């Protein structure tokens, strides 16, 4: 039986079907159902994240063709990409803008999953794998920021690794591990490059695979409130098939994202700045990438000492503890039924965390002295 359809392409697909049996993917897509309700829009964020990640891989590979990972050549090679390589400016700008958009979408995805209580049993591992992916993406951002070897990135990395160095017990080891020594040097650049193009992609690929497998296994979660409404009203659950209905709508979103990225890249090409000079004084207003801003600002506002303990240390421990609680939320918010007051408290805590992160991030960008 033909599965590829008529024409030359159909014949090729039939040939491949006989040897690889690819049509099971189509069957899977047709079989997979996406629930339909008033919050269905949030389901598109996972696909959008995956699309942007794919874009990062593609543009990253292209950049690798010209990038040189050494303190002597990194800046010049990026300059060469921006000025001389045909469409180099476009590839690098898309890579940089897309990285930021990816992390933004990832955060929105995470909060939507949180507020829709999609982490509840049996999707605890899906949530944890997703959180690990978020941490990996932040790792991508942190390591990638240094690669152009410009002044701002150099000092931001110094501050960032200093913070890692303040972690009790393992701090000094972490600092030396990240920097490849006591100071940020060309060795740090080489190391970050290795993390960025080998270690993190390998881990991410494995985790994305696991995450998708789990999503496929458990299907998409319906928020408890919708479930309760349906039960109360005796409504039948509505859904649409993943292929072709949901995927086509997904593709519309991806095209729109591509359009936005193209516009950002063409109208606001990602700046390169000045080459890093380890002997130059730190420039004024060093700040990390926006997604680390809320942590940076928290540490900045903490007093030098709190109850005899170093403020920065306490801040790092606090943020670490909050992240741990967040990762293990499926095991804490165990009964997220609509009327459960404990679950409502978790929801409220989520809103407070979101508001705190938004306000602190905004504070980073307010003029000095405010």
């Amino acid at each position, binding site marked *: 039986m033909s599965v590829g359809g008529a024409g030359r392409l159909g014949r090729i697909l039939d040939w491949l079907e006989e040897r690889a049996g690819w049509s099971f993917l189509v069957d899977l897509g047709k079989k997979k*159902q996406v629930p*339909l309700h008033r919050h269905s829009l949030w389901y598109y964020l996972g696909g959008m994240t995956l699309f942007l990640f794919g874009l990062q891989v593609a543009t990253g590979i292209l950049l690798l063709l010209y990038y040189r990972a050494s303190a002597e050549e990194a800046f010049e090679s990026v*300059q060469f990409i*921006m*000025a001389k390589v045909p469409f180099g*400016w*476009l590839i690098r700008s898309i890579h940089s803008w897309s990285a930021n958009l990816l992390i933004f979408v990832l955060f929105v995805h995470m909060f939507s999953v949180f507020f829709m209580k999609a982490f509840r049993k049996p999707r605890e591992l899906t949530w944890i794998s997703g959180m690990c992916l978020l941490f990996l993406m932040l790792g991508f951002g942190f390591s990638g920021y240094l690669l152009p070897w410009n002044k701002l990135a150099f000092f931001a990395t110094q501050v960032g690794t200093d913070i890692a160095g303040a972690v009790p017990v393992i701090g000094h080891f972490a600092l030396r591990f990240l920097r490849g020594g006591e100071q940020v040097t060309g060795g740090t650049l080489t190391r970050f490059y290795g993390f960025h193009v080998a270690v993190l992609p390998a881990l991410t690929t494995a985790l994305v695979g696991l995450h998708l497998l789990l999503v496929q296994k458990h299907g998409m979660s319906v928020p408890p409130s919708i479930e309760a409404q349906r039960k109360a009203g005796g409504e039948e*659950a*509505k*859904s*649409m*098939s993943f292929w*072709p*209905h949901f995927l*086509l*709508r997904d*593709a*519309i979103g991806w*095209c*729109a994202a*591509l*359009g936005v990225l*193209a*516009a950002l890249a*063409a*109208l*606001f*090409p990602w*700046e*390169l700045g000045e080459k890093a000079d380890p002997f130059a004084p730190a420039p004024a207003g060093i700040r990390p990438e926006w997604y680390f801003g809320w942590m940076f600002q928290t540490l900045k506002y903490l007093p030098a000492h709190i109850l005899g303990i170093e403020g920065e240390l306490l801040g790092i421990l606090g943020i670490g503890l909050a992240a741990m609680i967040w990762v293990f939320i499926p095991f804490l918010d165990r009964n997220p039924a609509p009327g459960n007051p404990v679950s409502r408290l978790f929801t409220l805590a989520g809103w407070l965390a979101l508001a705190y992160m938004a306000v602190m991030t905004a504070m980073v960008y307010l003029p000095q002295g405010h």
Partner: protein
Amino acid sequence: MRIPNPAPVSVLIVLMSFITPPLRAEEPPSQPSGPLPTETSCFNCHSQLDGAALEPTVRAAEDIHFQKGLSCQDCHGGDPTAMDDMDASHNPKKGWTGKPDRLHIPEFCAKCHSDATFMKQFNPRARVDQLSEYRTSVHGQKNAKGDGEVAVCIDCHQVHGIRAISDPRSPVYPTNVAQTCAHCHADAKKMDPYGIPTNQLADYKTSVHFHAISVEGDLAAPTCNDCHGSHGAAPPGVDNVTSVCGTCHPREATLFRETEAKKKMDLSPCIRCMVCHSNHAVLAPKDDMLGVGTTSTCTGCHAEGDNGYAAAGKMAQSIETLKGGLAKANALLDQAERAGMEVSEDRFALQKAKDGLVESRVLAHSFDLDRFLAAANGGIAATDAGVVAAKKAFAELRFRRVGLGLSLLVILAVILALAMKVKELGARPRV
């Protein structure tokens, strides 16, 4: 025991006493000697006196000599241990010389300051040529002829309370030198007998040199002694002006001399440095000093119709073209950069134009039009390249905008096609 005959011993003592001169004030002490400066009979008595007799003790603590352990008797002789006995402490047999007369102060100071062995005790690199330098100066020559009014050591360095020259409070510290010289040279009563004008300080205060040293605190900038010499102070002769200015401006001086040699002509005295730049009132050089305009210095010697006049006009025109081109290229590259274009390499290439401008400004001192134009035209070519690069960046920017527009159209078309497909597939299938 045999008693030796005292006669030969007496003769030996007399002979030895005769050939060994008494300790005189003119001789430098072998090393700081005697009691501590403040414990001498001199200090003890003079600190209880009034007026001029008290003066040596008032500022003694500031005095570099006192700080190094030298005391009154090291300059004036006498017995610093003879307390409460003026005759004993002022005993000429103990080398007491008293206050030296003004005319002989240079030798008085030089008895130590010309003694290399003595001075090495305090500073291995100390100069010991001050007196011989002084004798070459106008001050020193007049002093040698018995003119007691001209400057001697104490007029510049003060007396009692002499500070190290590296002390910013010293009157000979670079920032204070002009005022110290002006103490006499701005005094018409003192200068009238010599027929010397008194406007030097006022002129100097308008100069770029004064601004550099006094406002910007650049101690390398010249003050009076950098051009006139310090101990050997003399007005530089017309022939020496280029050498004087050339100590800090060697490139300009070399160009000047090269042209003289190449053209086998003596350019003095008509175009020595000060003809264009003045002497004490050296103003910050400006491009409009070159050319044939109203502010030009060239027109002071050149008139319309002569070669120099034409050359000055061409030089000024080239400089203006170069400056205009540089400003235009910079503005365009700035604009391109603000629009997000990567132009750092083009900006770096534009450095050649800036170098050309600096080079041509210097080459104006060669009075050689060909050399000047070679540098200026090199700079102009670089500015042209900068403008071309900026225009190329704008063309690239337009290409990007057009490309973006077309890409968005394609993306929009794909979105529309997908939307139509979604519509064609009909209402969401419900399970």
